[in-house]
């Protein structure tokens, strides 16, 4: 979405136009969903958080002052929501259940009951994604968040440093070490 189009979209959303929100969902929904999924590891939480964030936008956009920094602002809200969700998940861990999801979004129940006809490419893709999820899980929470915000939120190191209230060098160092660790973990888990 170009800057002019985005500006018009924000103005429409501030005026309460549902179609303007639709345009925002189409433009940012996939990246937000990806961010939420990689941050929480669960499709259900990702979808729930996406819906919650859009609801919050209805209130927050009323007082939003558009200075061309919509994306970092949006992903800042997303990051705060993820932190709250993870805090709650840690406080109330859910026991394993038939309804726990795989990385492909299918519950265990669905996987058990589904006919065993899945394309090998899908299985490989799911396996790689699962390995990435496991590798992300091994990173320290702040480092993981910074990497995800860099990727999905397209945030600069300066913006990340501001968000996490740390020096610019620290933000860069964390992302650097995190990515290196991620690559190393993926390399170790890759099939020979």
């Amino acid at each position, binding site marked *: 979405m170009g800057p002019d189009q985005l500006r018009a979209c924000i103005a429409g959303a501030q005026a309460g136009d549902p179609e303007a*929100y639709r345009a925002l969902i189409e433009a940012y929904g996939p990246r937000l*969903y990806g961010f939420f999924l990689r941050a929480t590891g669960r499709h259900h939480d990702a979808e729930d958080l996406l819906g919650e964030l859009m609801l919050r936008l*209805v209130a927050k956009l009323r007082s939003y002052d558009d200075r061309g920094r919509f994306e970092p602002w949006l992903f800042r809200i997303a990051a705060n929501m993820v932190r709250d969700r993870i805090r709650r998940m840690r406080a109330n861990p859910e026991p394993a259940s038939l309804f726990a999801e795989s990385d492909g979004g299918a519950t265990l129940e669905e996987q058990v009951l589904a006919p065993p006809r899945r394309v090998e490419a899908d299985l490989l893709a799911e396996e790689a994604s699962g390995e990435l999820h496991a590798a992300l899980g091994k990173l320290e929470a702040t480092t993981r968040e910074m990497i995800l915000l860099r990727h999905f939120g397209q945030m600069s190191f300066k913006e990340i440093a501001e968000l996490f209230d740390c020096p610019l*060098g620290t933000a860069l160092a964390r*992302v650097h070490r995190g*990515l290196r660790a991620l690559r190393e973990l993926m390399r170790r888990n890759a099939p020979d």
Partner: protein
Amino acid sequence: MHLTDAQYERIARFLDGQAAEPAPDELAAAEEIRRDEAAVGALLAAPLGALRLERVARRAMLAEVRRDAAAVAALLDVPAPRAALDRAHRRVTAELARPQRVLFRLAGAAGAVAAAAAVLLAVALWPPAGRPARVAPRAPGPVAAPAPRTEAILAAARDADDPAIGLLAIEADEVETELLASPAATGMDLRIEKLQKDVEDLWLELPPDPAPGP
């Protein structure tokens, strides 16, 4: 001092520690070169400075980050299900419609209560035309049951065919029930009582109706 190429070659081999037998002026030149090199060497060995080193390190780090991020990027991306995006839009649409629905409900309720209260007050204060209101003052206390005339009017309203009047009557019942049940009923009653007394005093102050003429 002017030295030939051959002399410079002998000085160089001497400074390199090779066997050479420099002449006295060549030896002097060699010593001078050693002194100058020592002086300049200290300047050449000066550190780049912490800030510059940091910049160099950071540049290298950035290059590595870009390379690693590119490698991981393709794995991080995940398609968002269409259903998830549609559900989010439905939630937003419902939220956008919510304030209007609440406002309409509030306005409707406020209007009904106000209308019912106005009906009650009007019925309580204004008896049939031609006769001044002579309401006996009541001692402060809980709200008494409505006067028989008021009750008759409300009953007629309830039975009325007009649904709007029927609705108003029902609202009036509800307001009355609330008044009877609420602890603030006493205050409302006092206010109504004062109004009634004011009206009575007004009647007492007004001149009598002119007597009919001859």
